[in-house]
């Protein structure tokens, strides 16, 4: 028996030992093949899952993947760590925020805990982790706010979370979202992971998403008063009410399951959360074109007219550039991040990959050309462009047009949900490409939207209110029906009279500060770059820092080199007074409008693109662009002059040579 135990223990021990915080499956043993994952599944109690058991519990990633991988290390990775972001050290390259949008209250608030300028931290919005997951959980790989266990004794805890979290469970990091290459991995349909999120079945998300089993029951629909008071008993009761039925064909004779796990997630996995859709409209002529601002009718099935990123088209994958180690800190690919002195990282930016990084330690990294990246010639492009522009300015995003495109993104607009819970959200109105100056001083294309929200202001500090708070206070003036579940996908115009009424309602509802000396918060509305407030009975609007647009640089899709701005010496792609690069019309997107006999009219004037390019004056750039009209003439003139000078030099040079020859030969011939 002892011998059997020893042999059994030896057989069960993997070839590599765990070291330190590293799990058995972490790190790299040098073999580049993909390890086959025929594994035992574990539930949240750490018990092996038997699909034939009565009321089996759902799969827990922490306990299943955590058998061989350091779950906590992974859970500190880029996709899961925003709640731990240090407010004192914000990341100065803003990214796509989460957006709290609500058409009824005309709200679109950028939310991020990473300290990105213009985005509000969840705590500033009094958005509890529970509310956060409810708002954004469909396009979310788990962990982070989803794994914060609520302490029932915590007075500051969200009461809803205290009651509902034992029912819904924790939303663990769902490793399978990215690493399961099985085509049955389902994030978006009625039978997939996102529906479980919508039902607040967080505990079941991974099981359903991977197609390991079916789940019946909805946590959202369970009345908490029908449950026993003891938390352990609650869980047991829940598991019997929300039943998991495993697909037994997935389990082998020893209850192991083959999961098609890959190191590098397929592009389609990334696309679920990182897609962008251009909103299209039909023109009267029956053609289809990208919308300018204002979005006409969105037409479906136009994906075929768009090309994908040139890198993907040439065979690369997302993870060829956006790499990570065990810590899952994925490289974002921008130069500031990559130029950390590590050669293998520095060349994962556009510049580093194509041109090399002179600061890198490795000689190969200095040369660039990683993964066969061609070295661009940039023929005829003055070098000042490389100081003033990011690579993406000329190479990425949609080709600039006089009117910006309105786009939707997977995370912000919940794209990719199919079936009953499919959304057709139009808010926020994300505009692109906005060529704005970014933190590193270079101009780059951005996606952008104008924040819109109701809030309170003390001094100069504006605090946004959550849409549901506003809806409760001002449902009537806003024309909201709180008893309907119909979704409103886009905002309706809002006249100043309504704004004044809502502000009045908010002002009446705002509690007085405890300190009698303190100023009473003033009700405000932010939209279209303006702050609206009441001065007595009068509504006034003014510029305010809280109203500036939220913009984040884009890198994809990268266009082919032949479709880059300035290709073949086409200076006029930008240096023309009609060029979108400088003079595209950037609308001040706002629901605020005036009702006239001809309909609703927005009074805020659009701004030229150059207004977002700090340091460039519109008048100057007009003059500068205008000078390009004369440039061909100047080139010809100067070259002709040079030709003439050269001819004279040759003529007199030859004459001088004749004189020298004559002088040397002592002839008396005069020069």
């Amino acid at each position: 028996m002892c011998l059997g135990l020893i042999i059994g223990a030896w057989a069960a021990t993997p070839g590599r030992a765990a070291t330190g915080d590293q799990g058995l499956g972490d790190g790299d043993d040098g073999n580049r093949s993909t390890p086959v994952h025929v594994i035992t599944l574990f539930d949240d109690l750490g018990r092996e899952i038997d699909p034939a058991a009565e009321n089996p519990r759902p799969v827990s990633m922490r306990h299943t993947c955590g058998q061989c991988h350091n779950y906590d290390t992974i859970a500190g990775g880029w996709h899961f760590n925003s709640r731990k972001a240090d407010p004192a050290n914000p990341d100065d390259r803003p990214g796509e925020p989460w957006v709290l949008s609500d058409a009824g209250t005309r709200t679109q608030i950028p939310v991020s805990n990473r300290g990105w300028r213009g985005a509000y931290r969840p705590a500033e919005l009094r958005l509890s982790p529970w509310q956060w997951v409810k708002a954004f959980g469909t396009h979310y790989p788990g962990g982070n706010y989803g794994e914060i266990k609520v302490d029932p004794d915590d007075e500051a805890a969200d009461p809803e979370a205290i009651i509902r979290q034992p029912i819904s469970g924790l939303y663990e990091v769902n490793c399978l979202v990215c690493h399961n290459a099985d085509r049955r991995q389902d994030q978006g349909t009625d039978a997939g992971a996102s529906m479980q999120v919508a039902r607040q079945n967080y505990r079941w998300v991974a099981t359903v998403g991977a197609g390991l089993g079916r789940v019946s029951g909805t946590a959202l629909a369970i009345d908490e008063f029908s449950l026993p008071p003891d938390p352990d008993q609650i869980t047991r009761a829940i598991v019997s009410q929300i039943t998991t039925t495993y697909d037994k064909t997935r389990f082998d004779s020893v209850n192991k399951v083959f999961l098609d796990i890959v190191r590098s997630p397929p592009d389609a996995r990334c696309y679920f959360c990182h897609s962008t859709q251009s909103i299209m409209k039909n023109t009267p002529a029956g053609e289809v074109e990208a919308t300018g601002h204002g979005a006409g009718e969105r037409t479906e099935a136009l994906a075929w007219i768009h090309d994908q990123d040139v890198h993907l088209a040439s065979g690369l994958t997302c993870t060829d550039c956006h790499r990570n180690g065990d810590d899952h800190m994925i490289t974002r690919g921008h130069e500031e991040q990559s130029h950390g002195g590590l050669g293998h990282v520095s060349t994962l930016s556009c510049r580093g990959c194509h041109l090399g990084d002179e600061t890198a330690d490795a000689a190969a990294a200095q040369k660039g050309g990683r993964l066969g990246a061609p070295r661009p010639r940039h023929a005829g492009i003055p070098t000042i462009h490389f100081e003033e522009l990011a690579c993406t300015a000329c190479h990425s995003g949609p080709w600039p047009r006089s009117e910006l495109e309105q786009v939707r993104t997977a995370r912000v607009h919940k794209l990719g949900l199919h079936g009953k819970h499919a959304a057709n959200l139009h808010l926020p109105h994300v505009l692109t490409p906005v060529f704005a100056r970014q933190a590193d001083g270079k101009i780059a294309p951005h996606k952008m939207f104008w924040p819109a929200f109701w809030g309170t202001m003390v001094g100069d500090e504006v605090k946004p209110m959550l849409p549901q708070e506003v809806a409760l206070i001002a449902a009537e003036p806003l024309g909201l029906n709180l008893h309907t579940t119909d979704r409103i996908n886009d905002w309706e115009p809002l006249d100043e009279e309504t704004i004044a009424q809502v502000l009045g309602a908010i002002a009446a509802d705002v509690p007085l500060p405890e300190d009698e000396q303190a100023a009473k918060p003033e009700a405000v509305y932010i939209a279209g770059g303006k702050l609206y407030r009441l001065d007595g009975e009068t509504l006034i609007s003014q510029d305010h820092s809280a109203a500036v647009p939220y913009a984040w640089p884009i890198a994809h899709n990268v266009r082919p080199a032949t479709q880059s701005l300035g290709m073949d010496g086409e200076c006029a792609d930008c240096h023309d007074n009609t060029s979108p690069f400088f003079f595209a019309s950037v609308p001040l997107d706002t629901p605020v409008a005036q009702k006239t006999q001809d309909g609703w009219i927005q009074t805020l004037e659009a701004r030229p693109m150059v207004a977002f390019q700090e340091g460039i004056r519109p008048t100057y750039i007009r003059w500068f662009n205008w000078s390009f009209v004369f440039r061909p003439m100047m080139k010809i003139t100067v070259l002709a002059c040079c030709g003439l000078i050269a001819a004279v030099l040759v003529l007199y040079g030859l004459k001088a040579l004749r004189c020298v020859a004559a002088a040397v030969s002592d002839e008396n011939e005069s020069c």
Partner: protein
Amino acid sequence: MFATISAWVIVITVAVVVVHWFACPVAEKRDWSFGGLVRCKVHVLTMFFLPQELSLVGRLKKLVYLVGLLSFLILFLTGFIPRLCFGQAISGYTLMLHATFAPIFAVCVAIAVVGYAQQCRLTRAEWEWVQRLVSCRWKGLLTDSALGYKLTFWAAAVLVLPLAVSMIISMYPIFGTHGQEVLLVVHQYSALALVVVAILHVYLVMRLKFKTD
């Protein structure tokens, strides 16, 4: 680097001119009186006038020469001042001004080269100067010859070519990034050389005028 080199080269050139002015005076006896200094300044000023005795062609030539000098001055200020004083590359309105006067300068230089080439051709007199230099008969060598302004004239004509062509060619999609950088360097150092040559040329021409007047 370029800014440092430029500053030193320009300072040294001006110093050489000043030293030469005092070391090899045009007149045997200088008039240091107030009236003399005023007369000297007026004389310099009159050099920028178009004398009646000149023919129409002569006046046009001088006009072109003066316009060329003026545009060169503007190009020098717009090109060098940002670098020397602010350590910045030329940009903004300064760049526009620079680019506006560049073709004017090129045209003026072309006309001036055609117009003054015959006058500035090297003759037997210059050959004799070379012979004096070689045979160590150096007395009056630095004051008696027109070789200086003629040589600087031709040197300027030669330098204008890389100066202008380097920038014009960079506007065509021919050279890549490295080529662009090389062209910029060529432009910068040609400009510096031209500045030195121009300072010497104007000085020598003015010396000659003082002498002949």
